[in-house]
């Protein structure tokens, strides 16, 4: 009986937390944007986007290099090393760019958002905003949400571009693949709407989910040091799982049936 009760209780808690998450997001994004909020959003884009550039560029470079190395050793057996360009580009644009960017973003920016908002709650800053007749949903939550949604697709594109250059560095400059075939076969194979746009759509969906989880976990955190540490961990775990799960669904929808 206790076991059954705990299943029911956990289900109820999960549903209620979904409800709170929806209410928070609705309160934040349905607010009429003021010019002040645009300035705050730009500030946040700097914090979550520009300050994440280093980790995105370095990771993109290495992932491109590793893919070229692995791809070359397989393709060269069949004399197909000329196809290295499209292999690297397609894997990055369709999968690795959006997914790895989202995972890195969750670790770098998502955890920071959760901790920041959680601490604001713990130190009564959110409460005091409310008492000053300033809605924390508009003032704190909305700019951070939009900043994440705007920044992440751009980061994913930068990740893919750097990765393709990294692949060029290893494949062409070090292993001797013909530069002409690296670029021209890539250009012939990669399709704008099917590959590039689908990758951006994926990244956009991940951006919404990861940023939403991060700000909600902060906003809903138990305002103690233990609660905030738990919320930060949950942000990274839940957003990683959500990204990987959603990636499968989106891939199936986009590339599954032709």
């Amino acid at each position, binding site marked *: 009986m206790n076991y059954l009760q705990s299943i029911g209780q956990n289900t109820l808690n999960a549903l209620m937390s979904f409800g709170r998450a929806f209410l928070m997001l609705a309160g934040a994004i349905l607010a009429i944007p003021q010019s002040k909020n645009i300035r705050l959003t730009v500030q946040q884009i700097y914090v979550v986007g520009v300050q994440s550039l280093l980790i995105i560029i370095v990771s993109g470079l290495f992932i491109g290099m590793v893919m070229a190395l692995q791809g070359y050793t397989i393709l060269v057996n069949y004399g197909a090393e000329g196809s290295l360009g499209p292999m690297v580009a397609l894997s990055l644009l369709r999968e690795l760019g959006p997914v790895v960017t989202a995972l890195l973003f969750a670790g770098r920016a998502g955890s920071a958002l959760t901790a920041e908002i959680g601490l604001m709650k713990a*130190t*009564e800053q959110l*409460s005091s905003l409310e008492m000053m*007749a300033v809605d924390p949903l508009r003032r704190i939550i909305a700019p951070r949400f939009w900043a994440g949604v705007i920044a992440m697709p751009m980061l994913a594109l930068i990740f893919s571009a750097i990765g393709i250059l990294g692949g060029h560095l290893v494949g062409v400059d070090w292993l001797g693949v013909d530069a002409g075939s690296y670029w021209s076969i890539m250009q012939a194979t990669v399709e704008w709407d099917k590959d590039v746009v689908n990758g951006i759509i994926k990244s956009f969906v991940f951006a919404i989910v990861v940023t939403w989880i991060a700000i909600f976990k902060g906003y809903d955190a138990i305002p103690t040091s233990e609660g905030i540490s738990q919320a930060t961990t949950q942000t990274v775990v839940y957003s990683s799982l959500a990204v990987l799960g959603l990636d499968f669904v989106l891939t199936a929808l986009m590339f599954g049936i032709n």
Partner: protein
Amino acid sequence: MSNSSTLVSVENLRFLRGDRVIYDDINLTIKKGKITAIMGPSGIGKTTLMKLIGGQLRPDAGDIRYAGDSVPQMSRRELYQTRKKMSMLFQSGALFTDISVYDNVAFALREHTKLNEDIIRTLVYLKLEAVGLRGAADLMPSELSGGMARRAALARAIALDPELIMYDEPFAGQDPISMGVLVKLIKALSSALDLTSIVVTHDVTEVLDIADYVYILANQKIIGEGTPAQIKASDSALVQQFLRGEADGPVPFHFPAEDLHDTLLGSPQQGGKK
């Protein structure tokens, strides 16, 4: 109940947190321009009362009226309009840690008025001067001591010239000098700006010096009320226990628990955390 000299009235308020009763049918009246103290032991939910008055929490029963209007029944817009007239000094100060003291004080002015920066500058320095922190305008909140942070928060709280200011444990954790400064400030602000003040505290001597009227909360109820002189002369055992700081009496020292004998001799599974 709502005659013109009353700013806030709490009527038959009942509030539960989970299954725990915090308030059971209490009535309070806050007079305009006076300092009303609400005292009681720690953990009794005094902060909760302020959040109820500010509309951040909703009562389970009863009503809270601000200038005659029911706070729990206000629409979001009305509530935000009302909150512009009240202000709250949080126990931690709750300064925004990412902006300077100056910007903290200017925050509400920039948010709710269309004043230009020159006038805001004048106002901010006047408020900071009033709390003795004009020299600290450019510091970040993390660079302030506890007492200074609370004074800076006080400057921020009076930035919009509110009608009502609620102090949450303003004296807790202050050294005697800061405490004296704060007591003076609260008194001075109240008389100079004709502010209505609610001071929630458990520091008996300080608050009895400045309060016009006192309520003592314990056991989910108001156990005593009156002017400081009436309170001191009260023959209620509850009130006297509180004033003299006795550990045990009508207000229990022990959190409700089973008999000690049962706890010590009972089976180990029942002890400690469940």
